[in-house]
């Protein structure tokens, strides 16, 4: 009990003691508060920063894809509206099912010759050599793949419901660089399903792709009947 700072502390506290009611044991209260607060803050750090870092794995796509270039006028991809342009590659099959991410032969339709002019950038060259030339499928990670229990009909939304792609997919179609794919280690979901904000807070329709978001839109647009379970579950 000979340490100077201790003494100082004593002095400081005793001076404070004049201001507080006598029955309150200031020292113990303070220490209690200190430890409580420490624990509290530590928890916040763990929950908000550490946890997300552990929860999601990050995988880069095998090769970059530039959407912007493709929907650009010169690209020769026809379409009045943006949606139509998207549909040029992400097309509907005859039975109305949605082809999703195009297979390589769709790319080859345009990028038929590996030596073609379209291929200035290194990435494009790489793509032409490794994939187009070999007719090898690109193993893309899908940002928007819903789990197996979910049934989603694009044609019902795009053709019948006249929904624009961005409503759910945001400006993904305008991106020049496709983002790193983040997957929830526990559930295997892409981060885009739960939404990038762990709090679940969303500002745009495309921030999240959970059941409630579908239902919310159905209700807003007066399609409550489509909130029946079997409409979206299989």
């Amino acid at each position, binding site marked *: 009990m000979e340490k100077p700072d201790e003494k100082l502390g004593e002095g400081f506290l005793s001076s404070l003691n004049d201001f507080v009611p006598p029955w309150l044991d200031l020292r113990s209260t303070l*220490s*209690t508060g200190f*430890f*409580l*607060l*420490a*624990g*509290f*803050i*530590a*928890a*916040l750090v*763990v*929950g*908000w920063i550490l*946890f*997300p870092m552990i*929860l999601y794995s990050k995988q880069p796509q095998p090769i970059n894809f530039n959407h912007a270039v493709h929907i650009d006028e010169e690209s020769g991809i026809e379409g009045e509206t943006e949606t139509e342009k998207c549909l040029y590659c992400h097309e509907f*099959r005859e*039975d109305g*099912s949605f*082809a*999703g991410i195009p297979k390589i032969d769709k790319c080859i339709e345009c990028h038929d010759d590996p030596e073609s002019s379209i291929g200035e950038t290194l990435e494009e060259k790489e793509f032409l050599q490794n994939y187009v030339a070999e007719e090898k499928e690109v193993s893309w990670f899908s940002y928007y793949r819903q*789990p*197996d*229990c979910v049934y989603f009909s694009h044609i019902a939304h795009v053709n019948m419901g006249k929904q624009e792609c961005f409503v759910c997919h945001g400006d993904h179609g305008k991106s020049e660089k496709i983002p790193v794919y983040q997957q*929830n280690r*526990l*559930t*295997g*979901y892409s981060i885009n399903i*739960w939404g990038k904000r*762990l*709090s*679940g807070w969303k500002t745009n329709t495309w921030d999240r792709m959970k059941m409630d978001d579908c239902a919310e839109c159905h209700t807003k647009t007066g399609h409550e009947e489509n909130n029946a379970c079997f409409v979206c579950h299989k």
Partner: protein
Amino acid sequence: MQMKRRNFIKFLVGGVAGIQLTPLPWKFTDDVAIWTQNWPWVPVPPVGAVTKEKTVCSLCRGACGIEVRKIDNRAVKIEGRSDYPVNPGGICPLGMGGLQLLYNESIRFTSPMKRVGPRGSGVFMDISWDEALDILSGRISKLRKKGHPEALAAIDGNPNESTMALMVERLLKAVGSPNYVSMPSVGDTCSMVNYLQQGTGEMMAYDLENADCILSFGSGLLEGWGSPGRVLNAWGLWHDAHAKEKAVIIQVEARASNTASKADFWITPKPGTEAALALGIAHVLIKDRLCNVSFIENYCFGYHDWKSLDGQEHKGFKSMVLDEYSPQQVAGITGLQADKIKSLAHEFGKAKAPIAICGKGKGSLNGSLYEFMAIQSLNALVGNINKPGGVLVHEAMPLSDLQKLKNDQISLRGLKKQRLDQAGTSKYPFTNSLINNFLDAILKRHQSPVDTLLVFKANPVFTLPDTTACYKALKKIPFIVSFSPFKDETALMADLILPDHTYLEKMDDLVCPPGLQYPFYGLTKSVVDPVYNTENTGDAIIRLAKKIGGSVAESFQWPEYEDVLKTRASGLYSNGKGLVGYDASHPVWKMQKAGNRAAPDYSTFEEMWEAIKTGGFWFTAKHNYQNYSSIFKTPSKKFEFFSLRIKSAIDIAAKQKPLKKVLKDLGVAKNADEACMPHYSKDESSQDSTEYPLFMMPYEMINLASEWAPNPPFSNKTLLDNQLRNDESFTDINPQTAKANDLKQGDRVIIKSLAGRIKVRVNITEGAMPGIVYLPLGFGHTAYDEFLKGKGVNPNDIITTNRDPVSGQIVWWNTAVKLIKV
């Protein structure tokens, strides 16, 4: 110390409070739940583009049309098709499970293999196709060098009319062996009846859809008889709520099968006395003037007594029936009441278009020649032959023959040798092949006369009666080659495996589904790329022949099997009255009746062939009704109640040995005249009834595969738990039988016959005839995987093989047995 712990507790308290304000506990709870919704060990079927492939099901001979739904290159579902003549829409439960046979790796051979383990252990080693074919061709060539080409034999399960059957037989002939043995089927007996009574060795063609009275002698209309898809569809038509006049269905059977239960009348004679019943009905028809006199008088032979050129008096069908088969006499034989027989005959006689049909159960088991003749005679008596709603008579299917095969000296010498099964000899003058004799021949001799046995689309060790005998015989054969795609019992005994594709991976033809009333040609195709390293047996045979070389190679000039199919199909084109398209709104049975004159819907052969390849079928609805003067190819050019061919066979044989001996050899109990006519004779085979008081009857179910193809696991769901429980199958017995043997529901019991013993559980049901023990065919596999292996027992294990008179075929329904309570 004390202080420290308290602080730590405070720290924790703070932490617990804080963590609630982060997403961690909430998101974690949610994610763990989501994890249970996406457990990694629950399969997730990949999505993809949907396509549909039309083809034909060849799991049985029925040739039903099927459509396979595919996701990318994955077959995911088999469905019926409405653009196909045989079965508009529906298929049978087995066909529905086909994909479980295609994709079940544990029951398929994934590549050519040679045996490394002991015989029957099923231990094989992968080899290349070339090596496999070299081994076989080497062996065959050696036989030929040694001058014993006849030591090569084949057991073939392909239908007689099919191109594959021709290929196999051709291979043997080219090599120089007469020992081509085909698996028994009802078709053998039917075509024999047609040959003897109508002069054409064709299959029976029943115009069921247009008939208004079906008298079925044990035919399992609902158990998979004939072409299941077609017959079941007809059943639907007969029972349609809106149908104007409904057909009357009469089932003659000793067990409350589905057919019997659902039929309008159910007649239960003692098993094996059906011939007597048929003749009893004939008696009433004749006596009560219910038969078509003009047809009988003008187009039938042997109805009345007659005198042959040598001036000998011969008894006719009429007097035989009137003398020996009065309702009372028949009642005595069959155990039915006389007036029941009368009313039955009247029901049949007064119908506009009555058909009497034969072939028990699924019709996979051959029947009794005289019984079938008696039944066919009923159709003749009412004159319902080659009429709409009757039994149609066709010329042979218009398929071209393969070009003449080349034979060298070795093969010619080999072909002169006598068949091991004695088929076609004076003992069995009208039979093409007799597998049970074939096996006996091997068993009898000290050393197997067969050196190399080829097995095609057959599983004799499982499907033939007295399996132990069959097993022993095969064990004696030095070298067995199986072409089966499946690891069936017989294949496991093989030394070399040359696996065929499954029916969904290969192109092959199906000719004339049993019982169908119009000429039909079906073609399967490869709806998915072969899943494993297998090869279409047709191509394998061609390659094998080329490896053997010489005249054998010259006999197989085709580049590949499809060319063989095309060669034969060219006949369909030149026949000039076929169709390759079908419109469900005009079913063939209507078109045919209406006298369809539609021109072929193709103009060139290539066009026709492409259409067949995509659509999978060719048929003709043109039929020349009646014209009785030209259709019967019998010696008398008439329908023969009295078969002159049997007579001449007897006469020829009688030149060498006394008549008595001849008849004995033929197995005929009665006199020479009756030997030429349908008649009933109690079979002597039945053992003394004190030792074995009961009879065992095997029966077939539509939802349990009992032939070559294995049973798809799906159909296990459809089996009742008084048919199979855990790994034990049940025998159906009548409460009386149960009481006599003091058995209760579910008791375990041993069924013993001369051939062997099996252990089953007892299902007591009023659907069983007293004194008879029923066992389902299809259980008791010793091969395949956990879905089939060791489930139930195989009745074939205890069936004693007696032979049918004249035809010499196996008789299935009179095994005497006794029950021993466990």
